[in-house]
């Protein structure tokens, strides 16, 4: 094996990888948490970039199913959950969003009226064609596919189905002349080809035969599904799942076509709103892409929020992500030919437990350990000597002892002769302050904070599998650079990567993700905002010598305040929906018991900003004018006052705040 190859070079497991590779590296551990994705009914699968949406949706692809059979690996779905045939469209790859990039010849209706209908028509034809392809692929799939799922594509059934399909009104006569299976397929392909030819300026206009036979979204798809069951090509109990991936791309349409995105989304939403039992839709979208609509959750569709599923909750025991990440790591190492069978816990085998806090403090302090503590001139000499001596062996405890003495009402500790009881070592008190103390020790000793070990890597991943794989990738690269493994090694044992190498990889990964913030719509503004917030929080944490506010690596705002300042509220929502900030409700300990929300930086950004990633105790309480000041400092807002929202005034959505002005636009809300 070549140890110089990084097993994590390929970050994404989505529709772009080969089906055979998918089988080798897909982890089925999240399948149970997304069970409704494989049962009838419309589903919106939502998550930030890298949360695993496309990976899950890939299970619906017939070629992936066939690849499992070819590889003699159990398909991750069994029983009722496996009783489906999938077809679909990727809104980017299919080029459907190109509608509107070329003006239509003048005819009936304005572009805004007509283009969404063409858009829906293209989606219909694409999906029907894809469904035909799925049927043919599954009919040829190797032995092992459930009998009810394998389509019966006998000549007479295909002929019967084609004859019934072409007779239906929903086509407006376009396929009437092609009453055979192949003829129908070719006619559909011809229509898709005509559209693509028009997009590429290879034809002057959309043919009349198309413009006079535009279909309504969903109708041809439902019809075909119904006919397939009627004639017996698929069983009555086989569901037709239609996936529509990269829905969020409709938000990224530029310039004057931007408003078309709203219409296109309405077209897709209409398909869901039909609640047609013959077909179930699966929408894959990033979190910011799914906004309020006329649809009703749990009635028109079920929502699966992968971020919520995989991010850590209060109860670590029920946290799925560590097992998921471990399985992903195991599979990647297996594919790279490492001997993983021998290690039951590959995460620990590779990354170990990391530095314990005491070791970390010793590492920060280096050879001049007394730098970890600072004493005041008025403090008793004995106490100062004690702190210095303690710092020589245990700088962390010395720093905690220093902070104990700085806390209100605890100064008497300095006058006590012996410190065997060491109150700063009490579990509850110490645990909440360790990260804060370590941050200050690192700063006092001129060191960057370091992260290593299984728990910290999982914590920094923030429940996002792409971030986890990216951290692994950077750590592995750092390991290859640092130890220069032999090209060919008979030893297939997984390496245990030194903590100092992991620390380098983590910082590199963090820098990478910090830069990635700007890749998304409105990302430059958010990156500036993150810098302002991080610097503010860092200053507070470093200046808090008694370690009284160790939770100030996040901030909290009262919900009433947010309601009164929609610009601030929308901006914070947007930052959370892009995954730059993590938000959650905050149960305040203040007397007023006001409802609050709290925000923390995405943990992977913490190494870049030199902030602890662990959340503990109370965040920094701020009001909306303070957040507004941060936004002004980040040059997101130019004016100070936030106007309360008037009754019945629509709320600014997270997507509106990032709306970028264009040459032909009306002035926009953001100056990004």
């Amino acid at each position, binding site marked *: 094996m070549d140890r110089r190859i990084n097993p994590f070079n390929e970050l994404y497991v989505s529709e772009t990888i080969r089906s055979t590779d998918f089988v080798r590296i897909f982890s089925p551990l999240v399948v149970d948490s997304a069970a409704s994705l494989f049962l009838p009914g419309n589903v919106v699968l939502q998550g930030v970039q890298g949360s695993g949406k496309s990976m899950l949706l890939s299970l619906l692809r017939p070629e992936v199913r066939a690849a499992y059979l070819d590889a003699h690996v159990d398909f991750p779905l069994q029983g009722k959950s496996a009783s489906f045939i999938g077809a679909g469209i990727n809104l980017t790859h299919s080029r459907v969003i190109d509608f509107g990039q070329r003006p239509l010849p003048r005819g009936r209706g304005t572009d805004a009226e007509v283009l969404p209908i063409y858009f829906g028509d293209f989606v219909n034809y694409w999906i029907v064609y894809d469904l035909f392809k799925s049927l043919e692929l599954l009919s040829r799939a190797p032995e092992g596919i459930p009998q009810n799922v394998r389509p019966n594509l006998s000549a007479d059934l295909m002929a019967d189905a084609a004859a019934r399909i072409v007779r239906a009104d929903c086509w407006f006569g376009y396929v009437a002349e092609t009453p055979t299976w192949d003829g129908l397929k070719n006619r559909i392909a011809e229509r898709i080809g005509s559209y693509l030819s028009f997009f590429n300026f290879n034809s002057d206009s959309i043919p009349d035969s198309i413009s006079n036979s535009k279909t309504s979204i969903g109708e041809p798809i439902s019809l075909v599904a119904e006919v397939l069951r009627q004639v017996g090509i698929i069983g009555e109990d086989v569901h037709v799942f239609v996936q529509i991936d990269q829905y969020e791309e409709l938000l990224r349409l530029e310039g004057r076509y931007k408003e078309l995105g709203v219409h296109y989304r309405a077209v897709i939403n209409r398909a869901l709103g039909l609640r047609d039992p013959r077909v179930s839709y699966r929408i894959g979208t990033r979190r910011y892409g799914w906004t309020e609509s006329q649809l009703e959750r749990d009635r028109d569709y079920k929502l699966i929020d992968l971020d919520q599923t995989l991010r850590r909750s209060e109860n670590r025991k029920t946290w799925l992500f560590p097992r998921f990440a471990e399985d992903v790591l195991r599979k990647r190492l297996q594919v790279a030919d490492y001997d993983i069978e021998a290690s039951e816990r590959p995460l620990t085998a590779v990354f170990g437990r990391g530095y314990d806090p005491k070791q970390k403090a010793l590492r920060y302090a280096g050879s001049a350990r007394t730098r970890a503590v600072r004493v005041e001139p008025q403090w008793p000499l004995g106490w100062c000597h004690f702190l210095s001596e303690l710092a020589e062996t245990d700088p962390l405890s010395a720093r905690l002892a220093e902070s104990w003495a700085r806390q209100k009402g605890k100064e008497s500790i300095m006058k006590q002769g012996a410190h065997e009881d060491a109150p700063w070592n009490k579990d509850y008190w110490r645990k909440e302050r360790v990260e804060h103390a370590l941050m200050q020790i690192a700063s006092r000793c*001129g060191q960057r904070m370091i992260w290593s070990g299984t728990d910290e890597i999982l914590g920094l991943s923030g429940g996002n599998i792409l971030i986890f794989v990216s951290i692994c990738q950077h750590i592995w690269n750092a390991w290859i650079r640092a130890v220069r493994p032999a090209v060919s090694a008979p030893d297939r044992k997984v390496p245990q990567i030194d903590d100092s190498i992991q620390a380098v990889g983590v910082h590199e990964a963090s820098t990478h993700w910090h830069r990635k913030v700007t890749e998304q719509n409105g990302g430059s503004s958010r990156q500036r905002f993150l810098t302002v917030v991080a610097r503010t929080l860092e200053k507070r944490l470093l200046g808090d010598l008694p370690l009284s506010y160790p939770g100030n690596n996040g901030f909290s705002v009262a919900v009433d305040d947010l309601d009164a300042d929609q610009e601030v509220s929308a901006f914070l929502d947007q930052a959370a929906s892009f995954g730059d900030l993590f938000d959650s409700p905050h149960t305040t300990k203040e007397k007023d018991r006001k409802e609050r929300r709290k925000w923390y930086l995405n943990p992977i950004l913490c190494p870049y900003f030199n902030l602890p990633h662990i959340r503990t105790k109370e965040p920094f309480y701020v009001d909306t004018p303070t957040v507004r000041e941060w936004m002004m400092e980040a040059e997101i807002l130019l004016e100070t006052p936030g106007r309360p929202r008037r009754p019945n005034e629509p709320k600014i959505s997270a997507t509106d705040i990032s709306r970028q002005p264009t040459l032909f636009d009306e002035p926009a809300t953001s100056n990004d």
Partner: protein
Amino acid sequence: MTSTKLPFEERLMAWMADANCGQEIQDVNSQISQLEAELFNEYEPTRGLQPLFRDRLHRWIENVADPADQQALLRLVPHLFFIGPREFEVLYRTAFQTTCVTWLIDQLGLSLEDPLAAEKLRQASTECWFCPISDSMRINAFYHLNHLSGRDLRPDWRSLRAFGSEQKIIDHTAKEGIKYVVLLEDFVGTGSQMRDAVEFAAAVFPTLPILVVPLVLCPVGEQTSMQISTRFPNIQITPVLRLHEVALIEPVPNTGESQVVSDVRRIALAMYGSLAVEDQKSVYSAFGFNETGSLVVLYTNCPDNTLPLVHHQCPSWNALFPRASRL
């Protein structure tokens, strides 16, 4: 399997852990890794049984003992202008499609409105003789990339000057119907090599239009070019890429130059001072031939106009890009 870290990498990690410079060193290291993968491994003189780039980097940085100087050398690496094979391909194409074609249009006095302009231009290009000035210019690749044909002989004019017969050259051009001569060179530092060859060409063809195309030209070479053009009206010298002074590390500091440039200048002087006399002679000065101070590294070789601390290999100094010297 244990992870035994290489000593240099361990030192690099310690720098990356530093709160003041850690992020910058990490960024520089990432850039170097990227450049290594994309470009530096293309360096021809170190192909075969030579240390890998990363090993050469370790040894090169350890030429100096002071950690601050070591960091300065590390910071210098992303500033090196490494021209790899793909960059050369672009230079070859631009040299023909832009520089030569524009010159031919001028020579022919072509009007864009002339319906026969394209045909006349195509004809003129077949009447050109594209030759290298020295053997470092890969004229074969230039012909291939620009789909040029019809010239069997493409001698380098430095060799012609040494061994060629002027009359045979004149006879050859007459026989081949050559009306234009284009002389190309991959890198021109001071222009001294170019001057000899071009003056020889001017002597052979006192009236034939001659275009000289340095693919990369240093500022001092530009002065030489102007002198030649002034002396010989039938010669035009047009580089594809002109280097600006800020891309050099010259003996005299430029106003507003970055800290890394100042640091490297100091290290270059100290390094030169510590060299044996023969080594000092072979590298001409602390800033290379004629004190050019170039930071250019070609994938084919490192020019002697580049700082010797980059390319000089001797018992007391390990090169980052060891130069394959003619002598």
